[in-house]
């Protein structure tokens, strides 16, 4: 009844700053958390955190988690979970190694073949989940064991490597500098500025369109503050990277994937349907949404991204090891939940999952620099995950 009365209130064209901030605390909160954590470690490590070399490492170290988080977000939005991604990552790394080192396949062929195999693995798991309604937890738990075992079998318990140079480039390569300049990577700097400008352009255009329909709810100050900060961050980070070797290839790959998946989840009918399925599967089904096929595709996509992450990871180490991917699924799932996705499905954003992964990554990296042992790192990461979800639930109860 309170809700009934509250919606009858007159339409507020410009919500108050404080009110808007409160109702979007979750979205801004995670971004603020990332900035605060980065500032904290920047201070504690005497500025090592944002040194160009370390920043490059930070992206390299977390790329595979972020790549898998993109797929995991969709799986979780759809109302499922995938526990097998760590094992699949390890398995594909091993498969790639065997293909290239033992069978002598060229890197590009291996790359495509591995993506196909990863997709097939995702499809095999998704098939049981979508069409036979076997809980994803069970199917992917089985998958986790199966692919962990297959990795060991494939590698015979040995590490296999090294890889051809073209394959290594996937992770350790850098964007070539096409423009002249010693010690400064002008190409990437210009690229960074272009990306920032493009982001600004798209957001301003969307805002103008919203305003035209009278649907702009974000106060103007927030809009400029948010976009200004994002643009500044992009330019600053590319500047830092430009003073070293420029952006690593994998960063470009990640940026592309993040853009694509943000677009797919937010702007396409496919994305919309995934959210509807997670929100209320029965209602989605009775609205003519092919819930089974979409669930199936979500897992197929997850398999493909796990394969990609597997190759990125293997390329970085320049070998495949039997232990690769151990417990990675937990980091990926944690990143998605820190990023604000709901366990029940139906909510969560790509950018949230990426920021969630970065928070974990910065903490790992920062604590390692500080010499915090792996034991306490785990404890602290666990508490951060718990705190993020408690914050979520508390926030929801207060607003609901």
């Amino acid at each position: 009844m309170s809700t009934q009365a509250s919606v009858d209130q007159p339409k507020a064209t410009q919500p108050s700053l404080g009110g808007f901030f409160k109702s979007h605390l979750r979205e801004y909160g995670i971004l603020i958390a990332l900035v605060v954590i980065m500032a904290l470690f920047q201070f504690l490590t005497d500025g090592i955190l944002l040194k160009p070399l370390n920043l490059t490492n930070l992206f390299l170290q977390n790329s595979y988690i972020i790549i898998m988080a993109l797929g995991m977000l969709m799986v979780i939005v759809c109302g499922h979970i995938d526990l097998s991604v760590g094992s699949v990552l390890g398995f594909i790394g091993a498969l790639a190694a065997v293909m290239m080192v033992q069978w002598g396949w060229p890197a590009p062929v291996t790359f495509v073949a591995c993506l196909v195999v990863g997709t097939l693995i995702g499809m095999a798991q998704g098939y049981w989940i979508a069409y036979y309604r076997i809980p994803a937890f069970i199917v992917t738990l089985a998958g986790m064991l199966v692919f962990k075992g297959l990795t060991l079998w494939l590698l015979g318990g040995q590490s296999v490597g090294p890889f051809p140079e073209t394959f290594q480039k996937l992770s350790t390569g850098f964007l070539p500098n096409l423009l002249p300049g010693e010690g400064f990577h002008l190409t990437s700097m210009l690229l960074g500025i272009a990306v920032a400008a493009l982001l600004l352009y798209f957001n301003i255009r969307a805002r103008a369109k919203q305003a035209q329909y009278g649907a702009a709810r974000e106060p103007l100050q927030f809009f400029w503050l948010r976009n200004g900060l994002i643009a500044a961050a992009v330019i600053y980070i590319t500047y830092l990277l430009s003073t070293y070797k420029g952006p690593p290839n994998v960063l470009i790959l990640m940026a592309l994937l993040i853009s694509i998946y943000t677009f797919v989840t937010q702007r396409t009918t496919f994305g919309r349907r995934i959210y509807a399925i997670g929100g209320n599967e029965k209602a989605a089904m009775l609205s003519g949404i092919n819930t089974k096929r979409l669930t199936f595709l979500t897992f197929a996509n997850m398999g493909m991204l796990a394969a990609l992450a597997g190759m990125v990871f293997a390329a970085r180490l320049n070998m495949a090891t039997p232990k690769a991917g151990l417990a990675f699924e937990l980091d990926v799932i944690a990143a998605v939940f820190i990023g604000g996705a709901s366990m029940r499905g139906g909510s969560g954003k790509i950018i949230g999952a990426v920021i969630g992964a970065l928070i974990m990554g910065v903490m790992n990296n920062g604590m390692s620099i500080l010499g915090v042992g792996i034991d306490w790192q785990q404890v602290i990461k666990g508490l951060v995950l718990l705190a993020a979800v408690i914050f979520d639930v508390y926030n929801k109860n207060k607003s609901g």
Partner: protein
Amino acid sequence: MNTILEMRGITKTFPGVKALDNVNLAIRDGEIHALVGENGAGKSTLMKVLSGVHPHGSYDGDILFDGEIRSFKSIADSERLGIIIIHQELALVPLLSIAENIYLGNEQAQKGVIDWPRSYAQTEKLLAKVGLSEAPGTPVGELGVGKQQLVEIAKALSKNVRLLILDEPTASLNEAESAALLELLKEFRAQGITSILISHKLNEVKQVADTVTVLRDGATVSRLDCSTETISEDRIVADMVGRSLSDRFPPRTPNIGDIVFKVRDWNVFHPQQSDRQIIRNVSLDVRAGEIVGIAGLMGSGRTELAMSIFGRSYGQKISGEVTLHDQPMDVSSVQRAVGSGLAYATEDRKTYGLVLDDTISRNVSMANLGAVSRAAIMDDHYEDSVAEGYRHKINIKTPHVQQKAVNLSGGNQQKVVLSKWLFTDPEVLILDEPTRGIDVGAKYEIYSLINELAAQHKAIIVISSEMPELLGISDRIYVMNEGELIGELPREQASQETIMTMIIQSGRH
């Protein structure tokens, strides 16, 4: 008679909203007191204040029970005094037995060890009191909604109830079950148990209530004593809506065309038990611009019929033919059924109709995303403008279409569900319980909308358990029982009596 409960000057505010404004309620000992009002009038909030869900201190005013001022901090406090509330959504655990449910949280135990023989014996006694003959060990999930309701009441009795509050108890019951429940309330009255009945069904209120309190917009509008004066339904409705609603059904001049939609020899079997036939040889026709009602008791197979036609969403081994304009209609999946011009608005809008956490706008477009996208890319602005259009056209009360569906009242949620289906531009609409649990004013609006659709030459099937509603809006009524259509009545011949007689007679052979 003494006053058992008095609520004086209750005012409850939520941030920015005054939900209750100086509400007074006095309940005499041993009476049946009906509390009526539109959705959003403040009934549930008032009962939450009474039962301690909104604890003492979060509202202004006093609660007097047995003449003493009480300050309940929680439900446990009010239950201790025998104030028991039974919510519209039943709070039973389907996998536990009747006895386990009744004594949940109140186990008959000694030193933590449950005394099962005693629990069962007492459960049997309680069940006898509410007229149930089920074994106490039966899992609650195996009972129908009507019987589950009785289990809830038995549970209340186990707690030595003095004031029983029933929130829309007959909302999901059929006529026979409703009648039995009302009889039970009368029996309780004879035993000295006081009841508060919250109901939208004014005929029931008239039947059993000694006193009626009407709430509107969070304030007490009137208190009507049925023992001293005869209260007409129209009088109550007038108080509820604040305007006189001379006719509960909007006027309409039917303009009926040719047969548009045909179902022939429809047979459906139970989804798990493949030898159990749920729908038998159903054949029906609907003409353009015609509103056809399907009457029947709960479990007669009406929803199963509709769902099995709508993309085979129910059952297996489905056989039969569906045609539109004498052309076979492909209803083999929901997508195809929608694509060929069929729409089905489900009976339970929260479970089957809406994504509650999504916005109105997203719910409206859900069944027709193709129309608000180009090459699979959503046009969010067009999507919003579509929802905005329906908001104006059928009066969805909300400041903007970015509001989440969960925040709307039942009537407005139903309008969102209807908008969703209107946006698919169907030729045939099946509406399953379109006005369940929504208030009189919103019902009138939904009826007007149905009439308007009929005027646009749509073929409309309405499934409803409220017979006055079917009689009020249908041009023709099919009567269904045990999976079969047992009769067909034109509007002029249909009455509650003829329909009930048909059902009872068909059950005999």
